């Protein structure tokens, strides 16, 4: 039983948190791809930028003496998301819209997004330096330890307050997105444009409006994902740049352009990564009692050493491209 609780602590909770973050990032990438047909590399910077916006707001609120029962990062999240959406809209207006207007191909937009990535990275580093920050410098990170001795476990179930909130907030965001896409006029128009942009235009759908809404949603969700990532670990300028591969892998595995696919892909990659670096030795230790001397389990028995965690997303990506390039939910492939 102790081993099971350990497994839940190390894999189920950590995987759900990581998967949520990947999913929120991948949704934005997949929506932008569906509407504008280009891989938006600067998405990682929308996440990092959003996290810094939330951090500034949290610091500001704390300085004003605002107190709340939940971590400040979550209190400011709605406001930060609004600002994140404005930020994304501004980037589109400043950098991508002029290129689209000129009739530039999607590949040009992709390269422009690299330029945007570097600019935002540079600005963040310019103002915040390259060190790391924590949301929990002035407030404690509440940790819940649920005693599991009733079930015969010597270990408690450990979950932090931000982790509970993250999983809850992600669930709310996903449900809200689902309702938006299936119930609202604009959400349906978004799906229509992702399905067939020419026909959407012919139908009289205001495509410029749909593009704006896409950036708003992508920016807000990116801000949310970035803030959550910063709350779970620490805030630093290359926060999201380091996870751009798993996020893109999640979007592709789920099927580019498919919002639900991105959620599935994000969770899949989040869990796969945590499972791959999980030390099985801790769970299988009881077996040592029955195993003969020469088969004793080593101290560490992980599928992939932690240094190579990145390979997990890459391998899943490669397998997807080989077996089913359109992804789980049948997105674009050529």
């Amino acid at each position, binding site marked *: 039983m102790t081993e099971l609780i350990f497994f839940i602590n190390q894999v189920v909770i950590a995987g759900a948190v990581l998967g949520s973050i990947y999913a929120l990032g991948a949704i934005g990438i997949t929506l932008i791809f569906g509407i504008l047909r280009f891989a938006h590399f600067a998405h990682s910077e929308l996440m990092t930028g959003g996290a810094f916006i939330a951090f500034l707001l949290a610091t500001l609120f704390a300085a004003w003496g605002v107190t709340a029962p939940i971590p400040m990062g979550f209190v400011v999240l709605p406001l930060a998301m609004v600002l994140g959406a404005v930020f994304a809209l501004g980037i589109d207006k400043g950098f991508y819209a002029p290129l689209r207007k000129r009739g530039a191909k999607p590949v040009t937009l992709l390269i422009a997004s690299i*330029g945007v990535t*570097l600019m935002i990275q*540079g600005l963040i580093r310019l103002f915040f330096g390259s060190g790391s920050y924590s949301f929990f410098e002035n407030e404690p990170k509440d940790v819940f330890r649920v005693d599991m001795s009733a079930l015969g476990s010597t270990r408690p179930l450990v979950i932090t307050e931000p982790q509970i909130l993250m999983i809850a907030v992600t669930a709310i965001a996903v449900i809200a997105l689902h309702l938006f896409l299936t119930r609202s006029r604009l959400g349906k128009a978004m799906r229509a444009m992702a399905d067939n942009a020419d026909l959407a235009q012919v139908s009289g759908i205001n495509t410029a409006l749909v593009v704006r809404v896409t950036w708003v949603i992508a920016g807000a969700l990116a801000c949310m994902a970035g803030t959550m990532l910063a709350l779970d670990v620490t805030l630093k300028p290359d926060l999201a740049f380091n996870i751009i591969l798993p996020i*893109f892998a999640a979007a592709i595995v789920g099927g*580019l352009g498919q919002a639900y696919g991105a959620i599935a892909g994000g969770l899949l990659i989040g869990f796969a990564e945590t499972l791959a670096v999980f030390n099985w030795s801790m769970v299988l230790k009881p077996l040592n009692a029955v195993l003969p001397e020469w088969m004793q389990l080593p101290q560490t028995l992980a599928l992939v050493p932690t240094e190579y965690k990145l390979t997990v997303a890459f391998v899943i990506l490669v397998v997807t491209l080989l077996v089913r390039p359109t992804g789980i939910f049948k997105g674009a492939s*050529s």
Partner: protein
Amino acid sequence: MIRRSLTLFAGLFVLILVIGWFMGVPFTSSRLVEAAAYSLIAMGLNIQWGYGGLFNFGIMGFMMLGGVAVTFISYPVNPQFWGSDGPWMLGRALIAFGAGALLVIAAQQSHRVGVRGGWKMALTALAWFIGYCVYRSQIDPAAAYIEANAGWVGGLGGHPVLGWIFGGVLAAGAAYIVGKITLGLRTDYLAIATIGISEIIRALVKNMDWLTRGTLTVSPIPWPTPLPGDYQAGGMDAQTALLAARGGFLLLVLVIFAVAMFLISRAYAGPWGRMMRAIRDNHISSASMGKNVTARQLEIFVFGSVLMGIGGAILVSFVQINDPSSYQPINHTFLIWVMVIVGGAGNNWGAVFGAVLIWLVWIISDPLAQLLFGTISHWSGQIGWGEIPDIQSRASQMRIFVLGAVITIALRFAPRGLIPEVVRREG
């Protein structure tokens, strides 16, 4: 067009003279050797992007492979390793690898004995898993043993130029694998896959201490041409010896550069180049004309990567140290992109011009940014706002912003670069 190019190159020459005047000859000669290596790498990207329309956001990885290759080939032999059980254990790991590979191949051929569909897939996955476990069971102790008893495997003591070639070969291998998987799908997939492979190469090189010494770094890596010390031993004074040595190195790189440029220009002017342009500009119709688009793209992707591998190897040879932690996507991938975009994608001379110009600007922008920030800080200190804290690091971060700004501005206002592609009329 020719006139414009000549003017631009003349301007570049003047810039080099100015830098030489201000920063001194030793500094400038160093930067020129590096610029020559970067020209080779930029030419590689120009082949991929300018000719083939293929993304490569993993230049860093290919350069790192070159660095590892030249270190392995040219660094002196490590007798401690060869005298220990290390080679024997590595041999066993190799056999385990072979056995694993055989297992996977056998599983993939299992349809011959009547295993089909989902069962075959499951069997293949199982074979991969068992093969992986078998290999790990041999390589892990071998790696630990080597690190404990011999430090690392050391080099082979071969000629550095052999190492450069080997760097090209390794890069070609990595490019072949990535290209084989992603070419023929959306071009965005290639972009993501190359980012992935380069990050994985970085993780491997950093952490495989037994093979690369990882973050402990390897130095000094020998030069292919005589070092300044060799000239000094022959009776030259320090300054002349330095120049002679760097001149020799530069000459060697320029010879390689000239050969590459000659071969590529010839190929691109011929039927092969015509086909490449047709594929890039009109994917679908060339496919319907019966040209094997994917195979051609794979060729071009591998060729470009070879140049990146060689360039990366040359750089490591020149600085004489292989330090995996010095590699950053910004300096080693996106800087090259800026070179090609600013220079002119599709035109080799444009790419070369961009490489030299951007490299020089990148290098001198560091002291310039320091100067600028120092001045601003001084002013803000005087008017009572206080001086800027940790100015040194902030100034260098500013350069990243400028790099990004250059990309976006170039795309918007000069999408074809300073020396654009010459549009040939195909008849």
